[in-house]
């Protein structure tokens, strides 16, 4: 699905070669400062590498219209952002930005239930706690029906129990709908438990022409 060749980005990242497979959940694992988020942001053209090429579905990322690519390869940022308005407004924001039709309240409530978010749709989103905001932001991204989900520490603000139940739900959904997910995490448990492939950030930078994450042996 993604193919990265000879990527350089400032002093942060150097990737000689990397493939990320379609239909899988791939985890980017590594310590902070290892370039996980940077790599993720490159995949939906939020930043452009100084050198090298990233291909998505056999076409260079720079050839896509950035907005269209980002609606197909949607990203959940590390910091949960809520926009002005209610929980409903926030959940629907992604659909609004991408010009897709809204979904009805019952679907929103069902999704919130899965995300263990027991709030009213009319509640002011700015009043939510950090963990609740993170789940609203997560829900917003899931609603977009994208092909690829880029998730940057999607459960960092959650307790372990909620984290597990949400990851169970999300990974099942992604598998069921044959989507692809690439997830940044610093939790070894999350990486091992929920991913098909783990990319160790310290390995891709130092081993030339490796094929970590491809699944080929």
């Amino acid at each position: 699905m993604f193919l990265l060749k000879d990527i350089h980005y400032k002093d942060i990242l150097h990737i000689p070669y990397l493939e990320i497979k379609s239909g899988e959940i791939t985890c980017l694992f590594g310590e902070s400062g290892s370039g996980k988020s940077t790599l993720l942001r490159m995949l939906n053209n939020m930043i452009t590498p100084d050198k090298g090429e990233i291909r998505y579905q056999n076409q260079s990322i720079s050839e896509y219209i950035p907005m269209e690519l980002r609606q197909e390869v949607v990203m959940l940022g590390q910091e949960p952002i809520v926009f002005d308005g209610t929980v409903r407004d926030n959940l629907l924001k992604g659909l609004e930005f991408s010009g897709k039709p809204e979904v009805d309240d019952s679907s929103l409530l069902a999704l919130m239930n899965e995300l263990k978010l027991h709030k009213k749709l009319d509640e002011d989103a700015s009043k939510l706690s950090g963990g609740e905001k993170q789940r609203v932001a997560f829900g917003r991204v899931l609603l977009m029906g994208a092909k690829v989900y880029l998730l940057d520490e999607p459960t960092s603000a959650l307790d372990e129990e909620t984290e597990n139940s949400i990851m169970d739900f999300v990974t099942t959904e992604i598998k069921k709908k044959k989507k692809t997910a690439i997830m940044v995490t610093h939790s070894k448990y999350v990486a091992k438990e929920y991913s098909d492939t783990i990319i160790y950030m310290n390995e891709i930078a130092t081993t030339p022409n490796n094929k970590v994450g491809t699944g080929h042996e």
Partner: protein
Amino acid sequence: MNEMLDITLIQLISAYLFIVILLIIVRLRKIPREKEIVISTFRMTIQLVLVGYVLTYIFENEQWYYSVIILIIMETFAIYNIFKRSKHPLNRELKKIIAVSMVAGTLFAFLYFDFVVVQFSPWYDPRYFIPIAGMLIGNSMTGITLGVSSLMEGFSSRKKEVEAALMLGATPNKASQKLVNHAFDSAILPTINNMVGMGIVFLPGMMTGVILSGASPLSAIKYQIAIMLGITGSVALSVILFLYFGYKTFFNKSAQLNI
């Protein structure tokens, strides 16, 4: 002009008593502002005296190019002042946009005012041309200054929000819509408030001038209404132009944030 009392030099000097009182208060309260007060009083005096002589000369030698030169000087000064008053560093492109929006916005409003609303005769009559151009340019200058600071402020304080919107596939236009609208609002608000208080809270300078020169208050308010509308138009137009082109400088061609 014939009905207006002339102030003698002695009388004028007596008005400086207000500054003396201010200086005494400031000194007694130990507020370290004496230097600024003296300098600004001095500058105000010198600048106005010079302007008085320049205007006298121009009024006596009506030439279209004198009026146009004054207009260019005012525009240049206003643009320079916007750059200087910005608390955030401005890049080249943004400066260019400020200059173009300022000139285009004020000039359009002013030409409309000159040729359609008041119909100066001749079109460059300095008695009308210079003060009215000054008012439009001055107010647009304040408007754009507020717009610039609100826009820069918005992009730095709401950067994460704009970025989150981009990640969801929003266009730069949609991602920054909220802060652009906010910038427009804060730029235009003083002008709107000005209209509300007009005539009740204060008699504006222009109207005071027209009344002092012996015209009837009714013809003074006609000018004042026209100029208020002109100012509103000029401010709105230059601010819209600035914001329309200005927000785009915060994004590159890959729709990524530049900052």
